[in-house]
Each structure stands twice: as C-alpha cells, then as structure tokens.
C-alpha cells in the first residue's frame, strides 16, 4: 500500500491539489470542545516525514461575529471579553478603543493609564501560566506548582482592581468603569518587586537546571526568513529576532507615554521563547511601576452616546500571545453591522503548520507548545501507520514519547 497515491473517489482534498488517498491522511489532534481554539491537523505522511499539514479548527466556533451583530455595542463588550479565557482584557480594550476611534472620542489620560496597568497585569499572569505549563509538560511539577502559586498574587491584584480575576468587565466606551482603589498603589509596587524577584529566579532556574534545559534548547526552532514569510505575531515572531511589538510601533492607551522595551531573541527555539517571555514579564513589572508613578489625576471615564456614527475602524493591540486585530463597521445604528476578529493564535497557527512540514512526526507536540496556543491542545492523534498498516491512537503526550523513541533510534 504505497502512501500518497491519488485515489479514485474524491477524497478529503479540495480542488486543485493532488488528491491524497484517505489512508495516507493521518488525523492529528483533539476533539476537545472545551478548548478555546483546539487545533486539529490532518498530516499527510511519507514514512516519518510530514509532507502536508491541513489544520482544521473551529471546534468551539460559537459564531461570535454573527452574534455581535444582534447585540448592542455595550453588550458586545461582554461578549468579546469571553472569547479567550486568559487574555480577556486585551479583547475588551481592543474593541472599545476601536469604537472610540470610530466615533472620534478622546478618552481621559487617567483611563489610558489604568487600562495600561491592567493590560500589563494580564500579560504577566498569561506568561506565568505558560511557564507553569512548560514545567508540567517536562515532568517538573514543582516548577508548575511554584509558578502558579506566585501567579495567584497577580490574579488577586486584578480582583482588587476590577472585581474579577480573569473576566474583568472593566473597560467600557469612554474609559474604565471604576477608578483604581486608593490603597492599590503600594500594594501594586510591593507585588511587582515580589514578582520580579521570583521571575528572575525562574529564569535562572530554567536555563541552568540540566534536566530542563536539555529538553528546551534547540527544540522546535523557527527561522527568521520563515517568520518573515508567514507573519507570526507576538513572542513567536520576536523569538526569531524580528522585534515588532504593537505597543511600541503603533502605541495605544498610554503606551506612548510609558513605552515598552521590546524584548527579542535570535534562535527561535523553546529555550529562547522561555527567556523572552520572562523578559517580557520583567518589562511589564517595570512599566506598571512607571505608570503608577506618572498616573495623572482627573476623570477615569466620560459619558458616551449609545449609538456609534457610521464608518469603519481597524484597530489592533498587543495581547500576551501577539497582535490581536478588530475591524468594526457601523451604520450609525445601536448595534454593529460587522465585527471581524483575528486572534493571535490564528496567525501563529500557520507558522506552526508550516514548521511541521518536512519534520519527523516526533516534533509535532513540541512545535505546538512553543506557539503557546491558548491551551496546550494537542490531545489525541490517530496514526495510520502506512507500512505496518495498523491503526493506533496516541495522545499528544504519548506522541512526545514516541518522538523520543524515534530520536533514540537515531542516536
């Protein structure tokens, strides 16, 4: 049974490309409706080499863009906030700022600073979550427990400011819904120095702990010209050396007055992703401290009319995983005519699939963890072993182990 021979009946493949026989199509991925963007890939194999990767997402496609058209602008803020369970504040400030730009509305300076502080808090908690997952993935549960223990401090801060740990429901048109609590300043500064101390220790631990560094160095690398061609966003892009960050290049909120130091690395493997994200957490702590010093007084919100003038606006922010883009179009009514959302994982997804082409089957889980999809969602794979013509279903993790078995044979 040779692999890849075109089959008679019309197979999964679309028009145009050589048709793949179903046996050479290997489904790889989860059917996990609970995950935000569960990636599900069909890999076309030639022996061990991956020839073609066909992503299939949408398992939690809730038709949000259609639902948005039936709700008023204010209700949409709470709808978009629930797109992602980790970077929900990025969604709400991207949407609100897009509409404010559309209705040419000037937000008070204090509100911009508060939005910056809460957005950076969210970036810290998102990166710490990912660091813990990498620890768990490598079998180092102690790191997972420690990192998530320290992350609680950041979540408690968000709860103190906005009333909720993740779904903050805090940004609205014209600013934020409540002012910063007055005793928050010294609590914030104390927690920031605590987080900085801890993250410095983790950064040093992860790079020097032998059993960890050997698992992340030179694994799942992404080259710079591939990045230039495939336009990944966020840490994935910056780990290859191209330092593009929406906060620096196209500043929104108060980022022009409190500019970030854009972190970047050069060799694009998981180890550089780790140190890059830790660098970003340290930079966020610094920015929060600077923002709290320069926090202007004045109103934190100004009233905004319910309906939005006709027109359209394209707006993007730097979410923890990369550039998040909102296009909203209004026909002057009380609900939007169209809202298009492109999340960072969508942009990085293609880079991950392209990275897999030509790689052995063994690299699939590692490349995807580096991308930090909203959830490490490689969950199950069913492998059609063409030469032994047996059908196995592995979990993603098991595939990791199969990968090691594969490398061991190469030793």
């Amino acid at each position: 049974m040779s692999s890849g021979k075109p089959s008679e009946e019309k197979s999964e493949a679309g028009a145009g490309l050589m048709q793949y026989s179903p046996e050479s199509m290997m489904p790889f991925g989860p059917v996990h409706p609970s995950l935000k963007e569960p990636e599900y890939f069909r890999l076309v194999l030639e022996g061990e080499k991956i020839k073609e990767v066909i992503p299939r997402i949408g398992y939690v496609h809730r038709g949000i863009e259609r639902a948005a058209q039936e709700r008023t602008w204010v209700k949409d803020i709470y709808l978009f906030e629930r797109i992602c369970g980790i970077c929900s504040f990025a969604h709400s400030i991207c949407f609100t700022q897009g509409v404010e730009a559309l209705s040419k509305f000037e937000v008070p300076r204090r509100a911009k600073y508060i939005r910056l502080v809460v957005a950076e808090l969210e970036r810290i908690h998102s990166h710490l979550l990912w660091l813990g997952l990498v620890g768990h993935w490598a079998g180092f549960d102690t790191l997972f427990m420690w990192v998530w223990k320290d992350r609680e401090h950041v979540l408690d801060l968000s709860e103190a400011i906005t009333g909720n740990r993740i779904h903050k429901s805090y940004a609205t048109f014209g600013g934020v819904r409540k002012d910063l609590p007055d005793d928050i300043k010294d609590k914030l500064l104390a927690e920031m120095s605590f987080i900085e101390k801890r993250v410095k220790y983790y950064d040093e631990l992860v790079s020097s702990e032998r059993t960890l560094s050997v698992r992340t160095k030179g694994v799942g690398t992404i080259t710079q010209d591939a990045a230039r061609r495939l336009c990944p966003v966020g840490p994935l892009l910056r780990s290859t050396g191209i330092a593009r960050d929406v906060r620096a290049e196209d500043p929104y909120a108060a980022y022009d007055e409190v500019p970030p130091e854009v972190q970047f690395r050069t060799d694009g493997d998981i180890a550089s992703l780790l140190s890059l994200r830790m660098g970003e957490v340290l930079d966020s702590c610094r920015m929060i401290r600077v923002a709290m010093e320069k926090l202007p007084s004045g109103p934190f919100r100004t009233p905004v009319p319910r309906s939005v003038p006709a027109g359209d606006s394209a707006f993007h922010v730097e979410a923890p995983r990369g550039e998040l883009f909102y296009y909203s179009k209004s026909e002057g009514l009380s609900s939007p005519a169209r809202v298009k959302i492109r999340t960072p994982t969508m942009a990085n997804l293609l880079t991950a699939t392209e990275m897999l082409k030509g790689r052995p089957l063994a690299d699939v889980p590692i490349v995807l963890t580096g991308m930090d999809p909203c959830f490490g969602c490689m969950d199950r794979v069913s492998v059609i072993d063409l030469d032994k013509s047996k059908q196995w279903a592995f979990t993603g993790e098991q595939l990791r182990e199969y990968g090691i078995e594969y490398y061991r044979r190469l030793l």
Partner: protein
Amino acid sequence: MSSEEIESLARKLKGKTSKSMNSTVILVDPARVLDACLSVASFEGFYHLTTITAVDIWEDIELTYHFWKGRSFVSVRTKVSKKKPEIQSIAASLPSAVLYEAEIRDLFGVTFVGNPYTGKRLLLPDDYPDDLPPPLRAEADPETIRKRMKLE
C-alpha cells in the same frame, strides 16, 4: 508609505483611495487585487498582512486586505459579486493569507482560486448543510440553520 506613493499606486491600478480613521484604503477591482497586494507588501516593512476582512454589503461581498507598518494600515479593498463569488488567491506569494482565505471561504462562500488549503472545511462543522447559504451572509437565517442541523 507616504500618501503620494499611495496615490500613484492607486492611479497605476486604476483604483480610488479613501481615508478612514487610521488606515488609507485603495479600492481596486477584483482582477487587480493580486498585484495591488504585492506592490503594497513590497514597500519596505509593509509585508505584514494582518488579516483579510469580508463584509456582506447586500448584493456583493467587500474584501479588505489589511497591511500594517508603524502607526498606519494600508488596506486593499475590492468587491466580489455574490452571483459569482470567486477571486484570485494571493496565498501563492503571501503565504500568510492561506488560513484567512480559507476562513472567508467557509463563512462567506467566496472561493479563492489557487488557495493551497486542501481541507474541505476550516471552521464550520462537517455536517453544515451545503445547500444553505454560508452563516455570515445576511440572507443566512440562524433559525433555519439551527433546525437543519438539529441543534436544540
């Protein structure tokens, strides 16, 4: 990309430019979309295709290709009629467009000729009825979809 350059590019492509908020839009007809995108992308630093937005404007579908650099977007916009929703895919030379085009094919029914994505569907469930109009089109009515797909 200064506005004169955009003006000269638009004239070359026999298109019009319009300004909306922070992005300058070049309106071209569908045949010239490919080289419009290529010439925008070839400007220094404008290679980042953020995404492709599709909007249903009654009798045809408006596609906008957003390119980002620095503080501004330069977007190439075109209209595709619903009667023959087909356009040349730009994925051959701008590979990052593969998934964006596949998503629009799923949700709006616009087929991108030459798009290398070989999956039958990117986003919609496999049992989405083919004869129903794609979900994000104005004429698609959620009630019939829900009944046809026997969702409660």
